């Protein structure tokens, strides 16, 4: 008001006053906005616009708080931007058919070669009655980077011109659509309302965080990402007001409203001079939908130790109700500053009484509180505060950013890899670059990465490998049917108390920002999954996130996994395979995302890991859950002087030198950057690698079928998927998009180690002989190689357990476990030791566990087959003969034959003992297998006819046996 310049109302030279021919000269480009409300801005603005003429030299832009979008003086640059944009819309075609839909039903479905994408879209605007044109910013960048640059740097300044360009194009291609009711146009010009068109840009190259918004970003076009925490109701916002002067009755139209209610500041009637008495004409004023959304920084963007920042986002017209609380969204638009009038009017001293304008923030502006900016003055000026907000032209829910990746933060392939690289500082970039270069140069960075994982933990290379791969993850895929295939790698560490299990878990939690550490024992009411909670104040039911949900897109580290609630165990199935959590409680039915990798640590059943039992018998976990872990690792606490010393040295060194002691080659930060970069790769199998994969899977399956792999769980398609995931993660570790055969081999080895880890450590060699040794060995802990054979005892049971693929099988293993301990108990073994075979035989009866298993299934199947044919068992001698016949080609001399004969005898004995076979003395038909087999051992009868039958508990129908031969 101080510098009122153009007192007369009708603006003569408002630049964007585009088509005077159009009946209501006011299109979006606010013709009449002019100076009425803003006189004092003008001279300044004019000066500013002039200085802005050098395009792009100024970054900042005056975001006016009121209808100042339109510079009152001709903005030549603006004009040329409008022209360029119009040209772009009219001419842009896509060479390649890259059809896409930016989330709007109104978008052009497809753009075939040479089709004018945006003209098509304008036609569809009409068809679907929408007013927002969605423009891929990449297209502008592609076609006209000067235009793109102008829009990006001075978006707020050029916004009216862009919209005007759109109106021009609409006028050209869909002229009827310009007006809301074109038929009435000719007769009633007052009712002739024009439509407001909007331009929504999406796919900006870079998405900023809330924290990055600084004053220099004001007015530029940018994308920000955040989680919606609150949404206001949708309200009408006055866009252009029509007023009647209460003094002279004159009509003033098209008063643009920006962020606050603005009346004309002076009646255009030269004789009137009214500045204050105005009446809003609702019917001729134009409104739009308006919504304020509060967003909060994404967890990944918050520096450690800081709290999340929040920001208001203003959504208008068709964008309202696009974002819901809890959604992670990307908003495109501009950062603006509005004076916070509510801060005013604090009179000095303590008698504070705040006067404020109730209609801040552009809200329902219809409530008439006098005077816009003029009001400020009357309050007496204090230090004025300014509020920031984000004016969005586009909302995109990142969770359904189309295509294969369901991870918001990983965009497709190289593109986001590039974006990530761009966000690094120079030294960070150099470091990453050199790491990638080394990798490319063939240096084995993979191994060195592994060594830098969890440096506080001594040893346990394999576990570290697994954790590295878990951090890298496999590729998330989506089938054409829309089914998501998880890429997350789940790992379980089983081991003795006070080994380093928890340290691994804690390491991962400190490594990943979105990792949640929880204990299976101490899960709260929300538990691992989610709970429906009644809000104390409102009484509403809401969903409370559990650990799995909190770790969405991260890793959920669950300690004491074995102590988890049964209900949680069941719920975790879904989370592990489907990556969702379903809730149906208190009238709430919801499926929530829980796309998380699980790193679990479990204690063995008996407190300490019993190497004489299988993994399954050691861990109290249902088979279905077990099968959902890609990798199992067993960590044992072994008294071994050398290891002990190394551990001691490691611990002492940690205290002596702290970081320097563990000094990994790559710091946590370096690793984090490398992993983040590596995760941008989406590796695919090469044909050769696919062949290897098929072959290895076949081998695993066969091992499994022949029994060698029947250790923890059966090899199924799940393990094939695991192998693919692991291969993908290994390829990522190598920063390549191609999975080559070596990667598959590495994955295969890991998987094998994981499946058979226990057995390899525990049994492997020393088959029969061990029986003699074991009673002596059992009390003291034996070095790893000195394993045991008895773990086989339980294997068949596990195998059976895995048959029950539902969660209800949980009690079954327990029952069976109670059976199992009977057989491997020491007395039984001792009695076995009395048998002729053991100690004296100096040619040691050693076969590998694999051989044993192969043999076992051979025999079992043979007998089963005979049983089926004859209904009888197999005679002992027949069995031995059959075996020797089979082995004949391999035998070289008689000692071999003797050896084989003895082997098969022991084999049979062991199978009987292990409840694979039933030993039936005498005639098969009339002897009932009711006798406890083990008590039968004293009879080593040559004369007694001995038959063998398959023990009823052995499942010969299962694929594990049938597919063998």
């Amino acid at each position: 008001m101080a510098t009122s310049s153009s007192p007369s109302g009708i603006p003569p030279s408002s630049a964007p006053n585009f088509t005077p021919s159009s009946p209501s000269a006011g299109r979006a480009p606010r013709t009449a906005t002019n100076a009425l409300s803003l006189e004092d801005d003008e001279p300044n603005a004019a000066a500013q616009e002039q200085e802005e003429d050098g395009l792009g030299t100024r970054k900042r832009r005056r975001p006016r708080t009121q209808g100042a979008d339109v510079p009152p003086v001709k903005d030549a640059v603006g004009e040329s931007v409008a022209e360029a944009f119009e040209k772009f819309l009219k001419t842009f075609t896509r060479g390649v058919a890259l059809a896409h839909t930016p989330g709007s039903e109104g978008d052009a479905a497809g753009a075939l070669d040479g089709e004018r994408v945006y003209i098509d879209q304008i036609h569809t605007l009409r068809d679907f009655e929408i007013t927002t044109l969605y423009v891929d910013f990449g297209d502008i960048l592609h076609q006209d980077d000067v235009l793109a640059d102008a829009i990006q740097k001075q978006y707020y300044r050029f916004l009216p011109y862009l919209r005007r360009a759109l109106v021009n194009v609409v006028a050209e291609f869909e002229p009827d659509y310009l007006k809301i009711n074109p038929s009435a146009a000719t007769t009633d010009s007052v009712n002739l309302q024009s439509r407001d068109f909007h331009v929504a840009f999406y796919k900006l190259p870079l998405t900023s965080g809330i924290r990055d918004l600084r004053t220099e970003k004001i007015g530029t076009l940018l994308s920000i990402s955040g989680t919606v925490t609150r949404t206001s109701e949708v309200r009408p916002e006055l866009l252009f007001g029509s007023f009647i002067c209460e003094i002279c009755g004159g009509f003033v139209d098209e008063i643009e409203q920006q962020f606050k209610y603005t009346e004309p500041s002076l009646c255009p009637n030269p004789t009137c001079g009214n500045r204050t008495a105005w009446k809003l004409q609702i019917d001729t004023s134009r409104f739009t939908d308006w919504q304020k959304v509060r967003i909060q920084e994404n967890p990944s963007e918050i520096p450690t130790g800081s709290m999340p920042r929040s920001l208001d986002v203003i959504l208008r017209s068709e964008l309202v109700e696009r974002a819901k609380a809890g959604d992670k969204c990307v908003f495109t638009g501009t950062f603006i500053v509005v004076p916070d009038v509510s801060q005013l009017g604090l009179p000095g001293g303590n008698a504070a009484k705040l006067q404020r304008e109730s209609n801040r923030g552009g809200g329902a502006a219809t409530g008439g509180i006098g005077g816009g900016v003029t009001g400020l003055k009357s309050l007496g000026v204090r230090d004025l505060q300014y509020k920031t907000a984000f004016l969005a032209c586009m909302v995109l829910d990142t969770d359904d950013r189309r295509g294969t990746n369901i991870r918001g933060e990983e965009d497709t392939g190289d593109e986001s890899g590039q974006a990530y690289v761009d966000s690094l500082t120079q030294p960070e970039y150099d470091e990453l670059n050199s790491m990638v270069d080394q990798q490319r140069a063939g240096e084995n960075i993979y191994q060195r990465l592994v060594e830098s994982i969890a440096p506080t933990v001594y040893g346990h290379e394999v576990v570290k490998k697994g954790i590295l791969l878990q951090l890298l993850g496999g590729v998330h895929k989506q089938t054409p049917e829309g089914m998501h295939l998880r890429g997350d790698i789940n790992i379980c560490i089983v081991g003795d108390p006070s080994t380093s299990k928890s340290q691994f878990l804690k390491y991962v939690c400190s490594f990943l920002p979105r990792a949640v550490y929880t204990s299976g024992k101490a899960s709260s009411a929300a538990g691992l999954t989610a709970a429906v909670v009644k809000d104390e104040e409102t009484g509403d039911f809401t969903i409370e996130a559990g650990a799995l949900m909190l770790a969405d897109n991260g890793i959920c580290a669950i300690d004491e996994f074995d102590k988890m609630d049964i209900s949680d165990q069941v719920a975790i199935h879904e989370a592990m395979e489907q990556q969702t959590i379903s809730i149906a409680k208190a009238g709430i039915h919801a499926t929530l995302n829980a796309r998380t990798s699980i790193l679990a640590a479990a204690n063995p059943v008996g407190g300490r890991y019993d190497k004489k039992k299988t993994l399954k018998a050691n861990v109290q976990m249902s088979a279905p859950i077990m099968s959902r872990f890609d990798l199992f690792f067993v960590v044992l606490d072994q008294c071994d002087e050398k290891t002990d010393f190394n551990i001691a040295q490691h611990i002492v060194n940690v205290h002596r030198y702290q970081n320097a002691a563990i000094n990994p080659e790559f710091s946590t930060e370096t690793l984090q950057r490398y992993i983040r970069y590596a995760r941008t790769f989406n590796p695919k199998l090469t044909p050769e690698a696919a062949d290897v994969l098929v072959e290895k899977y076949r081998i695993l399956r066969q091992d499994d079928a022949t029994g060698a792999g029947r250790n923890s769980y059966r090899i199924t398609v799940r393990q094939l998927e695991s192998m693919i995931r692991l291969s993908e993660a290994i390829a990522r570790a190598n920063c390549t998009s191609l999975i080559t055969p070596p990667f598959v081999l590495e994955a295969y080895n890991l998987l094998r180690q994981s499946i058979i880890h226990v057995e390899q450590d525990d049994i492997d060699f020393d088959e029969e002989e061990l029986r003699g040794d074991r009673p002596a060995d059992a009390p003291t802990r034996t070095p790893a190689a000195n394993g045991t054979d008895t773990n086989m005892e339980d294997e068949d049971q596990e195998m059976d357990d895995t048959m029950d693929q539902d969660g209800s099988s949980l009690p079954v293993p327990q029952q069976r476990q109670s059976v199992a301990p009977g057989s491997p108990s020491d007395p039984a073994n001792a009695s076995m030791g009395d048998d002729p075979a053991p100690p004296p035989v100096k040619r040691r009866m050693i076969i590998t566990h694999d051989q044993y298993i192969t043999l076992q299934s051979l025999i079992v199947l043979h007998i089963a087959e005979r049983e089926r044919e004859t209904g009888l068992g197999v005679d002992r001698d027949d069995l031995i003969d059959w075996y020797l016949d089979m082995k004949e080609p391999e035998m070289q001399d008689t000692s071999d034959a003797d050896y084989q004969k003895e082997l098969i005898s022991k084999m049979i004995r062991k199978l009987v003992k292990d409840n694979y076979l039933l030993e039936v003395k005498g005639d098969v038909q009339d002897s009932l297998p009711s006798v406890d087999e083990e008590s039968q051992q004293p009879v080593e009868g040559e004369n007694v006819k001995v038959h063998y039958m398959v023990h009823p508990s052995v499942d010969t129908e299962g694929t594990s046996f049938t597919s063998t031969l």
Partner: protein
Amino acid sequence: MVSSELADAFDPTRVILSLYDQDIDSFPAKVAAHFDKIFASKDAFDEIPSLHTIDPRQTDRRLVSFRAMIQDTSPSPEMYLARHSNGKCGGWGLVDDSGTEDIDYSDLRENTVLWAVSVPGESPWVGGDDAPRPLFPVSHPHKFPVPEHHFGVQVKLYDTSQSDSLKSTDAVTLVGILTLESLAEESDSPNALPVLTLHVLFTRELPITIIPRVFPYVPAVSSVRVLREELISWMADEGLGGDKDAAEWVLLNIIGTVQSRTPPLLPLSLTLSRFPASKTPATTPNLSIVLSHLLPLLVTLPLSLETLNNSSFSPESKDEDLHSGRLQLPRGSVCVITEGGVTEGDVFDRGVRNLRALQEMMTNQTLEYIFPFSRFTFPTDVVCLVLSEGKKSTFFQTSTNVRIQPKDGCELYGSAVKLPSPESLAMFRDLVGGAKTGKVTQISESVAEYIQEDFVAERKSAPTPAEAVTSDDLIHRMMVARLLTLSMHQSEVTTEIWERVKVLERARCERLKA
């Protein structure tokens, strides 16, 4: 010259205006540097009136200092007009009197808004005579972790390089201009009351002991060893029924701090089990009182079903206002948790969460803050001491469990604590505080060898594998050895200390078996 500057500085508004040089980008840093220099000496700094000692109602735009804990850093930054249209300087609550509203948006700068509270759990002796006086009504009780009288002020920081370094629970002295303003976040609610607002000129970080201490400490009178014995005796006699072993464990624990997070060298947590129940209505154990004379920051958290189920241990953001939790405590705090008040009944959901939060703090020194749709973990550095009547803590796993054996007839609650002479007390504080600030402890090659071989030998000689010392035990002993060294104000772990650790550990384990 300097003295005149010093005198002038008490009218900060004028100083700012006269310093102003139109370079709005570097001006906040310049202001901070200027005032920081003027008050560089301790004497000058002490002349700044403390917020605690003045009547805040009468102090618009006065220069004050405030020893505070940063409670909430979540408010959005504000924009202020750094250059008023008449060319005068803006910020620090300065009024634009140019009378024009035509502002140049390029003159807007960002200032940070925080909420700071007086330091929770601060022992009365720390502030000397400037103990908080209840002159001003407490406006935001939900923003203070403990239900006590406190000050809370809105803080505005203009030097943004400074503000980024201020994190939740940081203890700092803020020096600035005191005004009364409406709360930035609440300015749109019609009944917002004005709050004390401090426009910060400069800040001083406070040490973990609030009052600076020296390590190693060289006492004037007696040797450290003797002093340490005196201290342990006093703690034992006044707080622990004469149990010196327990007193030594308490001493070792209270001097613990986070030495490093990677690798994790965190303070130990201690349970004093079989801690007798109070026979009198008094529920605050004498131990808390004893410790509050020694420690600058001590909070007693009496657990009961009521506190568990109805209070919040974790800070929680509600409507973008961070409500404090019982565990939002500054670095270096000691938290005494008494389980004596727990009765039979149900622990509900919130109680379970609270227990988890506390356990998490004990084991990982982290605390989760709850925000809408997410939780964020913040680092803590708080020593936890659990007093339990049972054989072990009802709720928590602590790294050490010491069964207390008080002499018969000793009252551990409510009796008057006999203070030593002020000189002794001052030396005790120096000893404890110094040990707490001590960081690096050397372990020589030979001692390292000794420890390693000791470990191997001990494992070898274990009768059964399950009874063997584990690597966790070794880690624990190393921690204790480090604390023991610090408590003796030595800088090197020696074999004697190692053997002493083993003696202590063995005695502790014997008691547990008994």
